[in-house]
């Protein structure tokens, strides 16, 4: 029981402190530019681009897709920076040397980015209503759940990328590539069922795809039952990525201790 | 002729404090300093960290504007005639920065040579010569990121000599170098002086200033507290004896008690690893040793080596900057 409480304490304080210490966008200007202006501008861009091709009645399609896409900013950039910063500051080595539960620490790093991601999506939906999104028929609780799950799931991918980044790969390169991959393959701007097989195949392996599908259904009034299988799969994918990331993290730690490269952390 | 002239030079920095309600704090870095350097002189600016040495050099190298006062180099005003000064001077702020790490040493020099409008023909001849001169011959095609700290410092010297300037400003040139490297660098600087170059260097190593400079200005809290030859500066302390006592863990009030003893002019404490070196300026000569040692022993402090010696430039400096090191 005490171990459990200690773990919870580590989780919460670690998550909160890491948010403060390592959060990528601490300065208001940086937050406004990257988390507000950029996603809105990006949404506008794809909205205009998409409706120029498929007509005004597809406005909803693009707005929902791009609003949900906003979660990727926190999930990818936010999470990987949180993990990567630990290394840059030299604090990772102290974490590893501590008795704290590894999994708890690892997941805790993602926690506030999950919340932050959800905030971004909500903002996206609000802006979307100004651009023509009609939520009168929407299943709002279902939508809220979808937003939570999408944030969690995409952050799972972020955790995996973050732990890979510990191997000194050029992290910005990896971040940017995956962000744009999600943009293309998540179905935010493409009707996946009309796409070639290889695109559909790739999208199935990525988080966010099923969340976007669910959200589109829920905005039109679908029930939770109708989207439950999509959301369950989404959750599973997110967990799988997070666990893959954690496994990699442990393997990396093991290798570093064996080879004496822990200082390279 | 005076190559460098500084008159009533003042420089105030505005530092912003706080995050939400920003207050502006004024920091007086230079408080009206005056000095001049004649042609071919090796002049030293000595002082503790934050005294105003780097600020002075940045003003003289046209990188900073003064708040008040005037300064000129080779007769050109540092503010109005900055463009006339730049081709004639060279400066090093040294250290790890100031070079392009992803380029080779050779490419770095080519780059800076072009900034100083040196023609390719001259570059082809001079750059290899400079590499030999600073002892980096054979390493010019390696990337700078692989250079040791000493090598980087030497590359800076090569860089600053590219355009054969008449005046050199060297800010803490031997900082961070190992003793052998530092000695070689000092010799190189002396050689430059023999070529009739005017050199102004800043340092907080007293023995370095003593060994190299013809005249030294001691600067503290933005003011020049003394300006003289090394010998002249030592005269400040010529009537004093210096007593050095090793102690282990001396508390602050002990220092005050010793300060109040007869014959004790000044006490300073220097931390050296596990112990402290108590340095006492005494007008009583060796006669002050007994009272000091017994005071320390009465406080239950362990006393190590005791030395009585002649004052050095370092002692004069410590006296001039009021015991702060």
């Amino acid at each position: 029981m005490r171990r459990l409480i200690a773990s919870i304490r580590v989780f919460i304080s670690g998550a909160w402190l890491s948010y403060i210490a390592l959060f990528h966008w601490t300065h208001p200007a940086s937050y406004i530019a990257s988390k507000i202006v950029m996603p809105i501008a990006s949404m506008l861009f794809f909205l205009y681009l998409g409706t120029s091709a498929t007509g005004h009645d597809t406005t909803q399609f693009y707005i929902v897709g791009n609003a949900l896409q906003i979660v990727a900013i926190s999930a990818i950039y936010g999470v990987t920076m949180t993990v990567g910063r630990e290394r840059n500051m030299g604090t990772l080595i102290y974490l590893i040397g501590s008795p704290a539960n590894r999994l708890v620490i690892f997941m805790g790093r993602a926690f506030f980015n999950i919340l932050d991601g959800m905030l971004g999506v909500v903002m996206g939906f609000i802006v979307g209503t100004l651009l023509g999104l009609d939520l009168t028929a929407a299943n709002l609780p279902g939508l809220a759940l979808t937003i939570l799950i999408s944030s969690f799931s995409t952050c799972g991918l972020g955790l995996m990328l973050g732990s890979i980044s510990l191997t000194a790969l050029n992290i910005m390169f990896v971040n940017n590539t995956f962000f744009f991959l999600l943009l293309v393959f998540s179905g935010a701007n493409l009707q996946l069922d009309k796409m070639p097989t290889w695109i559909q195949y790739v999208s199935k392996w990525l988080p966010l795809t099923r969340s976007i599908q669910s959200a589109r259904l829920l905005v039109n009034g679908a029930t939770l039952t109708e989207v439950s299988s999509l959301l369950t799969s989404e959750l599973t994918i997110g967990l799988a990525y997070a666990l893959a990331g954690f496994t990699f993290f442990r393997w990396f730690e093991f290798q570093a201790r064996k080879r004496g490269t822990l200082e390279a952390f | 002729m005076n190559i460098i002239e500084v008159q009533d030079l003042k420089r105030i920095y505005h530092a912003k404090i706080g995050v939400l309600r920003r207050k502006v704090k004024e920091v007086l870095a230079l408080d009206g300093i005056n000095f001049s350097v004649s042609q071919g002189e090796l002049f030293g600016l000595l002082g503790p960290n934050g005294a105003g040495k780097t600020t002075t050099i940045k003003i003289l190298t046209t990188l900073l504007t003064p708040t008040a006062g005037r300064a000129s180099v080779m007769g050109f005003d540092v503010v109005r005639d900055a463009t006339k000064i730049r081709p004639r001077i060279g400066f090093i702020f040294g250290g790890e920065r100031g070079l392009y790490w992803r380029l080779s040493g050779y490419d770095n020099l080519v780059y800076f040579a072009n900034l100083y409008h040196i023609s390719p023909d001259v570059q082809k001849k001079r750059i290899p010569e400079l590499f030999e001169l600073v002892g980096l011959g054979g390493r010019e095609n390696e990337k700078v990121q692989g250079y040791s700290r000493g090598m980087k410092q030497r590359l800076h010297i090569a860089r600053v000599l590219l355009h054969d300037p008449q005046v050199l400003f060297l800010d803490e040139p031997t900082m961070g170098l190992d003793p052998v490297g530092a000695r070689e660098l000092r010799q190189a600087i002396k050689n430059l002086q023999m070529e009739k170059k005017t050199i102004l260097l800043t340092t907080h190593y007293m023995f370095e200033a003593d060994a190299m400079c013809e005249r030294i200005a001691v600067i503290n809290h933005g003011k020049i507290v003394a300006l003289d030859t090394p010998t002249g500066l030592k005269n400040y302390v010529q009537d004093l004896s210096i007593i050095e006592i090793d102690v282990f863990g001396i508390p602050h009030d002990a220092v005050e008690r010793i300060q109040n003893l007869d014959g004790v002019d000044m006490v300073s404490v220097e931390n050296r690893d596990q112990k402290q070196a108590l340095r006492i300026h005494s007008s009583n000569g060796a006669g002050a040793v007994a009272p000091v040692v017994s005071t320390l022993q009465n406080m239950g402090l362990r006393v190590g080596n005791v030395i009585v010696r002649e004052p050095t430039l370092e002692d004069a400096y410590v006296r001039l900057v009021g015991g702060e090191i």
Partner: protein
Amino acid sequence: MMLSKLRVVWTVFYLYLKQIAIDGFIIFTVIIQPLLVALLAIYMLRDIEGFQAIYVIVGSALTGLWSGTLFFNSFNIQGERWSGCLENIIGSPTRLQTVVLGKVLANLIISVSSMFFSYPIAVLLFKFRLTIAHPFLFSISLVMTIIALMSLGLVIAPIFSLNPGNIMWVNAFEFPMYILGGFLFPILLLPGWTTPISYILSPYWAARALHITSSGSTSLSDVLIYWGLIIFLSLIYLFVSSWLFRVLLWRAKEKATLGLQ
């Protein structure tokens, strides 16, 4: 004197290229991003009537050119400050603008190459036949585009160096230019009040010139107007840039920010 100035620009250009040639961020912004944008845009637009692949290729290359210009020049001067070389440059007889110009050009050459990477995507993946309607006019429009972005780059570089906080705003400018520049859709679709904004942006006219000479029908007089507007706006940008550099240098020397990280 002119010769030595040109030599500085060339040296900076050449040595800067050497430094960044293998940088991951560069490769991403110049190759991967435009590629993915092209892929996405092709799939989004290919069912429109009158779709021309060359339109998407040119448009996505423009996005790559702009992102490159924006991001690389945002740390053009800052990068020198971080490596401690800014003081060495300003204390030299060469003007800062000359050094910055060399790096702007190096960034542009790298960014222009992005056009040649999105090209194979369309050809190989989609088996599109890409034809440029007016190759000669297109080539000149490309040169004009470089001029447009070069002068804009000379404005961007000092702006993001004036205050340490400015660089945090850089992300906010990427997509708005894609929209207002009419890179991948006409600005007719946008609200009317944005039109004057587009008109004062040289990349907008560059995009028009490139599109109309690659996928549209055009007369020489139309294109000449666009080129003229590009030159006109570029001159204004250069004037603004020179003022910005003066302010930047004065402020830096007053506030001692040349050496700060």
